[in-house]
Each structure stands twice: as structure tokens, then as C-alpha cells.
């Protein structure tokens, strides 16, 4: 039952701080005695865990995708192979490597999309078998004492590029369910910097659930490491499990019947997540030089709460074209609801011959700023022989599903039913006659007047 789940979550949340410290992991004595030998140690008591993990999105960075247009239903898609303008590279073309030396300083560094993978790069995205199982970094998600400075790329004795892990017994003695920082070590640095990609902070000040001491996995409860997700138009790969606000709350959670009536056509997020943030535009055709003389894609960003979302109908199927990735849906389509989105626009090279977006290997431009060399390297990796690169823009709609504001900051009647309100009724498909009605105080006047009388 929903109420039950809500209450359990809340109780678990409130007591969490105490519990995590107090309730020791039951494998602790064993690990103390035998040390930590990687997943094999965990397998002693949690058999099959590593193998199951290899089948998940967090290991494969891909899955079959059936809600996005213009894809092959037999193929798998994800950060492994996607080409879009938030990250113009992917695990394949922008595979972790040492970049050419900077012509100015002679220094090199490592870069690659697959640094956000809980393997060691020698066992990379989507690898299988006993060696892959042994390479999983269980502790990056499960230890509260993880030394993150160990998780950096280096060259091993054979000159192969690997990613380090903290496999110390100290870290393995501090096991629990993942804390927000374990998730955020990857999720808040995606897209080229802190809070750039999705632009959501998970702090007491920014989210009512965080304020109640809830953590990511209170909502993203996982079984067999299949972490549930929703329908952000830009999150394609999934493990077949979904979450939504109404897993815990009901579809009609308000005392007020007028507000409850709106949930038929308006998603919870629309009223409850009034702000978003992060990067809103990026240029992959011109990289800017940083103080260390390396180059980065030029990025325009805002704070996590500085962007007003754009609202659009969404039926949980996704438009996917070279110039646009975003929600499909209309007012007429009864499966559609109005959702909030963060709009991001990215400039990159498109192939004039077929109109498709080209991808980029970041190593060349990072060293020299030469972005066309990055495109050439990616084309070479993918075996694309004929292409004519022309710069162009792509618009992406990111779902806005976190940073739930305190209830008194939720959008209410007069935020929407006003001529300069939060929603653009015309773009949402309402007629002039309807708009006249929808933007009139008539819709809420008596109700709000009464509320104000009560409050004062």
C-alpha cells in the first residue's frame, strides 16, 4: 500500500542517520579477518551478485530501448554509443585514453567518457566473464569510507590505461546501502563539471526529500542491481524497472479537490519542481583554453535553481532527430501530461551528406583545440569514410525530476491561471477562447480569497 510505503520510507529516512552508523554490515568480521579481495570477498556471502551486476545499465551503459523513435529495436543504446550534444563523444569514440601532449606545455592527461563506469577500464563497459566480475568496483557505491582519489586513470606496467579503485580493507569495512555521495560521484559530474548535465543538487535546501534525510536509493530501490529510472526523454538505457512519484504518493494526494483534479493532465513535477538548472548551451565546435592550456568545450551554465523549466505535453515516447531530442505528445493524446523540462542546446558538427550528427573523440581538441581533428578521429574509429562536417545546433529536453520544492513553493492556481503565468497555454494547444477562460482569475478567485482570509 502506498501510505504504508510512504510511512516506511519516512521512518527509514528519519532513523537512517543513526542506523547507518549503528548497524554494522554483517560481513564486517569476515572482512576484518580476511581483508578485501574485490567482489570475490563479497561473493562469499552474496553469491551471484557480481554476475548479475554485469547485466545492468550501470555496467553496460546500454539496453534495448523501445520508447524512442528512429532506433533499431534489436540494438542496444546508451552512453556507450549514443551521439548527442550534451556529450558529443561516447564510450566508444571517446574511450578513455591519454591525450596528445599540449603544444604549449608538453603535458598530457587522460580523458574519456567511460571514467563514469564502475570497472577498471581493462574490464570496460559491457565486458563479461570472470575477469569482468572481478573488476567491479563494489565499494564506489557501497562504502562510506571510499578514498575517491584512488579512482583515477593511470598507465599500468604494460602501458594500458586503467582506472584505479579503492580496494582497501578500511573502505570494505564501511559497507552500507549507497549514500547520495556514492551516486553523485558520477551523477553530479556528468556533462563536463559539477551539476552541469542535469543540474540538480540533492541537499536539504534544494529538495524536500533530502530535507527528510531520504537518500537516492530510498526512491531508486534496486533489486539485483537493476536501478529503476523514469522517462526523462534523454535517459534511454534502463533495466526494465521504473519509478514515479506515485510509487509512494497517491495520484490524488491533496486535501484540495481542485488540485487533485489537475493530476489527470498535469504531472506532479510540473507543480512541485518549479526550478531547474545546469548547462543550457554548449559549443563543441569551439573549445576554450583553460589556465592549464588544455581545451574544454565552451559551456554556458546556470545555478541549480536559476532556470525556469519549459512545459510540454509528454506521453513518455521520445522524438529523436538530429536537431531535436525531446518529448512527444499532444493535448488531444489522453496519455500525455504536461511535464517540466530543462532545455539544453548544443552546437556540434553534422554530416552534410546525410544530415546526421557526428561524434567527437575529445583527445585531439583537448590538446590543441582542433575540433575537426576530433571529428576525424571519431569517424575513423566508427569507419565513417564520407562526411562533410557542418556546424549546427541540436535542442535537447531534459526531464526535471528532482529538487522537489517545499509544498508552499509549489505552483498554485494564480501561478498558472494568469496572462503571464508559468504555462504558455497557446503553445500547449489551447484555443484563444479557452485561454481567455484559463487566464482569468475567475478560475480561482473565490478560493484564494477565502484562503487568504483564513491565513490572516
Amino acid at each position, binding site marked *: 500500500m502506498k501510505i504504508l510505503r510512504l510511512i516506511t520510507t519516512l521512518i527509514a529516512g528519519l532513523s537512517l542517520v543513526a542506523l547507518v552508523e549503528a548497524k554494522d554490515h554483517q560481513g564486517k568480521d569476515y572482512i576484518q579477518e580476511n581483508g578485501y579481495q574485490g567482489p570475490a570477498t563479497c561473493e562469499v556471502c552474496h553469491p551471484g551478485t557480481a554476475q548479475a551486476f554485469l547485466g545492468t545499465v550501470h555496467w553496460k551503459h546500454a539496453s534495448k530501448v523501445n520508447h524512442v523513435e528512429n532506433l533499431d529495436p534489436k540494438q542496444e543504446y546508451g552512453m556507450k554509443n549514443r551521439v548527442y550534444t550534451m556529450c558529443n563523444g561516447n564510450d566508444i569514440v571517446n574511450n578513455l585514453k591519454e591525450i596528445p601532449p599540449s603544444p604549449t606545455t608538453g603535458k598530457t592527461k587522460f*580523458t*574519456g*567518457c567511460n*571514467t*563514469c563506469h564502475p570497472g577498471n577500464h581493462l574490464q570496460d563497459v559491457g565486458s563479461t566473464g570472470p575477469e569482468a566480475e572481478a573488476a567491479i568496483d563494489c565499494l564506489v557505491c557501497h562504502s562510506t*569510507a*571510499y*578514498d*575517491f*582519489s*584512488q579512482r583515477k586513470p593511470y598507465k599500468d606496467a604494460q602501458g594500458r590505461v586503467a582506472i584505479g579503485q579503492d580496494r582497501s580493507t578500511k573502505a570494505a569495512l564501511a559497507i552500507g546501502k549507497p549514500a547520495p*555521495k556514492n551516486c553523485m*560521484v*558520477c551523477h553530479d*559530474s*556528468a*556533462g*563536463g*563539471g*559539477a*551539476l*552541469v548535465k542535469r543540474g540538480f543538487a540533492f*541537499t536539504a535546501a534544494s529538495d524536500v526529500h533530502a530535507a527528510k534525510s531520504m537518500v537516492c536509493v530510498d526512491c531508486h530501490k534496486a533489486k539485483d542491481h537493476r536501478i529503476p529510472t523514469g522517462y526523462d526523454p534523454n535517459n534511454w538505457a534502463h533495466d526494465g524497472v521504473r519509478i514515479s512519484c506515485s510509487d509512494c504518493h497517491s495520484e490524488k494526494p491533496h486535501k484540495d479537490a481542485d488540485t487533485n483534479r489537475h493530476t489527470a493532465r498535469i504531472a506532479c513535477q510540473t507543480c512541485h519542481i518549479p526550478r531547474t538548472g545546469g548547462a543550457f548551451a554548449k559549443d563543441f565546435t569551439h573549445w576554450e583554453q*583553460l*589556465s*592549464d592550456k588544455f581545451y*574544454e568545450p565552451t559551456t554556458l551554465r546556470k545555478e541549480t535553481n536559476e532556470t525556469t523549466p519549459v512545459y510540454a505535453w509528454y506521453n513518455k515516447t521520445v522524438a529523436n532527430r538530429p536537431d531535436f531530442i525531446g518529448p512527444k505528445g499532444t493535448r488531444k493524446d489522453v496519455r500525455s501530461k504536461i511535464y517540466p523540462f530543462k532545455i539544453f542546446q548544443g552546437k556540434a558538427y553534422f554530416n552534410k551528406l546525410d544530415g546526421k550528427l557526428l561524434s567527437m573523440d575529445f583527445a585531439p581538441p583537448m590538446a590543441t583545440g582542433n575540433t575537426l581533428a576530433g571529428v576525424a578521429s571519431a569517424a575513423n574509429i566508427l569507419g565513417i569514410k564520407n562526411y562533410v562536417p557542418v556546424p549546427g545546433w541540436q535542442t535537447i529536453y531534459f526531464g526535471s525530476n528532482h529538487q522537489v520544492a517545499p509544498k508552499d513553493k509549489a505552483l498554485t492556481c494564480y501561478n498558472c491561471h494568469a496572462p503571464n503565468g508559468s504555462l504558455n497555454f497557446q503553445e500547449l494547444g489551447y484555443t484563444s477562447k479557452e485561454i481567455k477562460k484559463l487566464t482569468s482569475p475567475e478560475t480561482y478567485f473565490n478560493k484564494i480569497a477565502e484562503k487568504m482570509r483564513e491565513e490572516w
Partner: protein
Amino acid sequence: MRKVLPSSIALALFTASLVTICSPAQAAEVKMIATIERIELKEKSATVTLKDTKSDKHVSVTVNDDLTLDKLRDKRILEGDEIRLKYDDATGVATYFRKTAGC
């Protein structure tokens, strides 16, 4: 003909007046991109010395928000990292402290 003040200007004036009223109490906020040279962790705060990438000047700031402190403790932020930094130049307390780079 007399016009009513457009609300945007009225708001701007109002905001400006607020800022003026408040400003004597507030010190200037300094903004820079800087590289971490040294991190000294204490019980409830950290003192971080950085080098401004534009001027090469050294600054020392106090970090006392829990989220950043935690990142310093478990070494998600390290010496050598480049930081987008804002701090209050009267107190030396960092109000914004984030790594510039990401994957």
C-alpha cells in the same frame, strides 16, 4: 503626458535600493577560477590555499559547508584540482566551491 513607471523599472529601483541598504554590512564577494595548492582539514572546517589562474595570486579560504567538506575529506576534491570559487573577502569564507572539470 505622465506615465506610470513601468513595473520592471520600479522593481529595479526597489531592488537597487535594497542592495544599497544592505551593502555596508556585506563585504565584497570575490569570484575566480583557481587551482588548489593546499588543503588543511580541521574538525568542522578546512582551510584551502589556492592560486588564482588569472593573476597567479594566492588566496586562502575557509570551507565550512558540509557538502564541500565531505568532498575534501573523501578526496573527491584534491590538490591540483581547478575550482570555481566565490568567497567573502571580509571573512575569507567560501560561498561557492566547485570543481570546473567533469567527465
